[in-house]
């Protein structure tokens, strides 16, 4: 599948992990919820990459989408609303061996968690951040989110949301040291998988906005884009989502876009009529804070005590 490792490979590693190796409790999202597709994609990537489940940590905040860790059979941290990113950074800081998937909602990341979003992008620690953007607060039952389009009626704005919607792509592309920004949709499993796989393989913080359907509260939110494939613009590049067979057939509008081209990425991110999907920006050379935070891990207790003794000397009388 998708040109990656496959189930029927004959060269099976000694402890071969199957999809089931990553499948936690039965997912309890509403029927038709876009979150299921993302869960499956991540489980497949774990399988494709043969990640030992004990080395995977799924970190989230609070929201429907933040239930994600509960449905993975890996380690997980289902924390506080808006605070997935600081926790994920803490986990990664001294554990370079762990693979981090962050699940966060549009409220979780872009509203209450917005400050951490700015800074986690800047820290650029190696992790994959999945923004489940259903443009609504799901778990608390249909309130306006920062990405809710104006005019849309919600429980907190029964006469229609008023503010212009926040664009998570332009924002992220404006944060210093941003190293990977992509967009995909829950209803195209091939593109979803390919995008998340590219994000996973990117060294640094990969930010992926996933247009995610919430049939319960925003059934029609992406109905148009979903129906009319011309509303989407497929970004292709060998260093982004490569031109895979199935995908090219699906989308009439395609474009070769170099993920290193920030100006074009920003221009694409602004587009509302045709939404770009694929990798908007990727620069693997940006400094990674996790390389700094992991310094000194190799030190022995003896090293440490010796260093401390000389510290004490500084205060000796």
């Amino acid at each position, binding site marked *: 599948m998708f040109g990656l490792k496959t189930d029927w490979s004959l060269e099976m590693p000694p402890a071969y992990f199957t999809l089931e190796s990553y499948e936690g409790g039965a997912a309890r999202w509403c029927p038709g919820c876009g979150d299921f597709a993302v869960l499956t994609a991540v489980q497949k990537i774990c399988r494709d990459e043969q990640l030992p489940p004990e*080395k995977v940590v799924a970190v989230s905040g609070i929201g429907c989408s933040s239930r994600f860790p509960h449905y993975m059979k890996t380690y997980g*941290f*289902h*924390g506080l609303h808006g605070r997935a990113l600081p926790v994920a950074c*803490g986990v990664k800081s*001294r*554990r370079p061996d762990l693979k981090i998937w962050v699940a966060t909602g549009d409220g979780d990341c872009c509203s209450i968690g917005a400050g951490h979003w700015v800074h986690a992008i800047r820290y650029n620690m190696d992790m994959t951040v999945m923004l489940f953007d259903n443009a609504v607060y799901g778990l608390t039952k249909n309130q306006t989110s920062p990405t809710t389009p104006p005019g849309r009626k919600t429980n907190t704005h029964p006469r229609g949301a008023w503010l212009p919607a926040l664009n998570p792509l332009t924002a992220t592309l404006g944060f210093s040291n941003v190293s990977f920004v992509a967009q995909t949709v829950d209803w195209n499993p091939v593109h979803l998988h390919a995008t998340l796989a590219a994000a996973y393989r990117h060294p640094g913080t990969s930010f992926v906005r996933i247009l995610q359907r919430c049939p319960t509260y925003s059934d029609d939110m992406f109905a148009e884009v979903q129906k009319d494939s011309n509303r989407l613009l497929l970004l292709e590049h060998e260093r982004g989502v490569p031109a895979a067979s199935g995908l090219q057939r699906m989308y009439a509008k395609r474009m070769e876009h170099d993920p290193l081209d920030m100006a074009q990425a920003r221009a694409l991110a602004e587009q509302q009529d045709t939404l770009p999907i694929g990798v908007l920006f990727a620069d693997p050379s940006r400094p990674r804070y996790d390389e700094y935070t992991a310094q000194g891990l190799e030190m022995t207790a003896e090293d440490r005590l010796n*260093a401390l*003794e000389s*510290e004490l000397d500084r205060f000796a009388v």
Partner: protein
Amino acid sequence: MRQKLSEATVEIVSDSGEGAQKAGQTFGAVSAKMGNGVWTVEIIPAEIKPPARSRAGASGIRVRFGTKAITNMGDHADLVVALNEQVLYGRLDQKAYKKGTVVLLESKWATDGLETIRTQFAEALERFEGEGLRVIQLPIEAACGEHTDNPRVGKNMFVLGMLCHIFDRDIDKALNEVKLVFGKKGEKVVAKNQQLLRAGLEYAAKNLDLAFHVPSTASDEPKLVMNGNQALGLGVMAAGMEVVSMYPITPATSASHHVAGSFHKMGGLVHQAEDEIAAVGFAIGASYAGKTACTITSGPGLALKTEFLGLAVMAEVPLVVVVVQRGGPSTGLPTKVEQGDLLAVLYGEPGDAPKVVMAAATIEECFHMVITARRLAEAFRTPVIVLTDANLATGVQPIKRPELDPEWLAPPIDQSPWPKGLAPYAWDETTGLSPRPVPGQKGGEYVLTGLAHTQGSKVAYDPESNERGLKMRSRKLASLQQTLQTPEVHGDPEGDLLVVGWGSTLGAIEEAVDRMREQGHKVSSLHLRMVSPLPLGLNEIFSRFNKVMTVEINYSDPKDEGPYASGAPRRRSQLAWLLRAETLVDIESWSRVQGQPLQPLQVEQALLEVLEATKASAGGKSPVTA
């Protein structure tokens, strides 16, 4: 002949930037090396660079030293060197001086070119005389100028020299200390400063009839001189912490500075987060991943950590949280001492969030308590709060050099496979304790959650699981409580009055109690280090005294004042309130909330008043033996 003193309190007060603190620190270090007990505390202006000669701009230092150990900043200064007269006003407001305090005052202002300054000087002299200070005008800068082109910069060492003469300091030790302090700046600078020190010494010998001797006993016991924040920083390292995750806030930040300066040599990480929420979240993430982590903060930062602390309790994440208390509420008095966060750390989180809370009483304890805290956090799988305050943070003292113990360091994380079938919260029904899986442990995969959960860490939909979790977390405190020693009473085990304290007031309280006991009063004291859980046996101790009261630096409604209906309970200080609920003993409280450490004399007067009142209400029969 030098007059022999058992102790002395000296201040150097100046505009900021005049080096008063460096001179005082050096004086303190020399005294410590001579074997004196020492307590040094900095006088810090409210602004970063207050204008020169401003009343609120006093910058300087107090050094109290004596033959025996010194545990607090004391009452009034005996001798003050002041580089201008204006900076003394604030000190007077703070009752730092008494009748007879000697003030060595820079005299140049008397002849300043500006008339306003001359007038200010004259007015100040009048005020000081009115207060009974013994002012000696000295042309310090001019005298110093005879030995350097830049007396503004050099006069602090000149002043140090004067003090070395006045208090009979070991000159070799002093010269050596100067070398240590300026060593990095090269030999020439060292020599210059040593020259100024000698000059000051000679100047004082020639011009002043002040000569004292404070005996000391040199000891071979290795000592360190440091403040509480430095001790805290070293304690963090000695505890084997790997991560200090913080956001700057006075007066906690300097502890992180100390760590930042050398943590990398121990392979540690100081993470300056984007805010306090992220700081504690990062620490919790690291701890979840098996790495020992702490966060260091003060009141406003603590407030922001409230939600995450609740999560740490709920999900049983080991975590050390150091709170260096300052004046509150809100931004309050950012640089000043208060003990106002006790109830907030105990009850701040919505829901029932039992956790361990300890309070350091001395600079030495700032070091050792972090080590204990880390161990408790891991053993009891819980956040542990360590309370200190601005008084400990900035007070400097010689302490016994700790003998580092490899056992103090956190052991490397366990990455062996997790026992089959063992739940992530396999609570022991009796103790509430459970072993903890760490990412990387095969078979231990679980999802930590702040939702009510089963012992399998599954979201709990049944009514019993919630109550069970609450019970297990509460039980941990009871288990720890079993292991605590009943605190010792300072003084006789029974009497008229028992004073209970916590935190940095230890020295002032015990000094006051000792003085009163010498006068024949039946007063004792008891100092709590563990506040949650409280140690057992308090009721039994309290029952042996006629009256029990706390002395604290946090707000309590003053007695006999205000528009209170008879019988309306006054708002008490925080520990008093806690102990009342716990012991049902009618515990009185006395407190001052002026942003300053307590002085022994203040405490003594307060205790005397309570003793009198108790006697009066006990029908005149005096329980005090004369």
